[in-house]
């Protein structure tokens, strides 16, 4: 059974079509879900895509968290639904309180648009289960406010619960300052919640699903979600 992914579309989303494409090229179903909808329907998973929701007015993701569809997404999360926030979607999930911490302006003050390498840290989640041990993922980033911040206590709890899913590393897999494109604490590129069903990352796996456009490494994340959902459904059957 193909997984059915609802890709949220806010005014100002710009990676929504990329997310739909990414899911479809790996052989699954994806449909857009307008921000005024009050239910995620029969979706197996939700992607909150990148872009500039509501113009990023006030703060990135600040206004999106109060949209009707986000109330449905919060309920989906509470019921154990699998949710991935990408770039602006990561910011939205943090603002909505579904993920700890916040994303602030890149330390360099530059908008960074480039390829990065990601090390997968925790592999016991729906988003990372299919990524082979030691494999680095080469995926693009495109953001101005992707510097991950959390206060000391929050960061300590994220670490002790193994909630760091991805870190920026060099091509050799080393955690270096040079490999950190935005100044994120501990080179954090993506995290999950304590329950491990909600994750967010600044890089764009959905823009790295075809060799034709530079990398197909992003497939590993979307395929992990599909495989995890299939296992869950098989166990429930």
């Amino acid at each position, binding site marked *: 059974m193909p997984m059915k992914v609802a890709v949220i579309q806010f005014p100002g989303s710009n990676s929504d079509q990329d997310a739909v494409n990414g899911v479809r090229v790996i052989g699954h179903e994806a449909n857009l879900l307008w921000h005024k909808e009050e239910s995620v329907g029969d979706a197996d998973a939700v992607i909150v895509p990148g872009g500039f929701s509501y113009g990023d007015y*006030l*703060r990135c993701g*600040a*206004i999106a968290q*109060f949209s009707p569809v986000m109330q449905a997404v919060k309920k989906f999360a509470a019921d154990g639904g699998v949710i991935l926030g990408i770039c602006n979607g990561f910011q939205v999930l*943090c*603002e909505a309180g579904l993920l700890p*911490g*916040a994303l*602030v*302006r*890149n*330390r*360099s*003050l530059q908008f960074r648009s480039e390829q990065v390498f990601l090390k997968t840290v925790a592999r016991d989640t729906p988003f990372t289960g299919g990524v082979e041990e030691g494999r680095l993922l080469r995926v693009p980033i495109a953001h101005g406010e992707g*510097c991950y*911040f*959390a*206060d*000391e206590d*929050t960061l300590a709890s994220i670490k002790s619960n193994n909630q760091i899913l991805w870190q920026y590393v060099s091509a050799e897999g080393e955690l270096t300052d040079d490999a950190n494109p935005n*100044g994120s604490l501990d080179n954090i590129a993506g995290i999950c919640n304590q329950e491990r069903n909600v994750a967010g990352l600044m890089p764009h796996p959905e823009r790295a699903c075809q060799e034709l456009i530079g990398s197909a490494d992003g497939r590993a994340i979307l395929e992990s979600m599909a495989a995890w959902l299939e296992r869950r459904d098989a166990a429930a059957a």
Partner: protein
Amino acid sequence: MKAKITITPKKAVLDPQGKAVQNALEHMGYDGVTEVHVGRYLEIEIDGEREAVEKQIDEACHKLLSNPVIEEYRFELE
């Protein structure tokens, strides 16, 4: 009634904007500048009893206007 709200980054949060402005000020010759923080300022026109308005603005600051993870806010009513 008018609520004047000031939102600033918390001290523990990196403030590269403040740093960039500080550097510019130093280049311009303002020697005594020791710290700069860039935040936001909002003015909200709102009707109601002072006590109720204060409660509403405080709640709005906490829920939407600021992000308590990275920012602090203060406001006055006039």
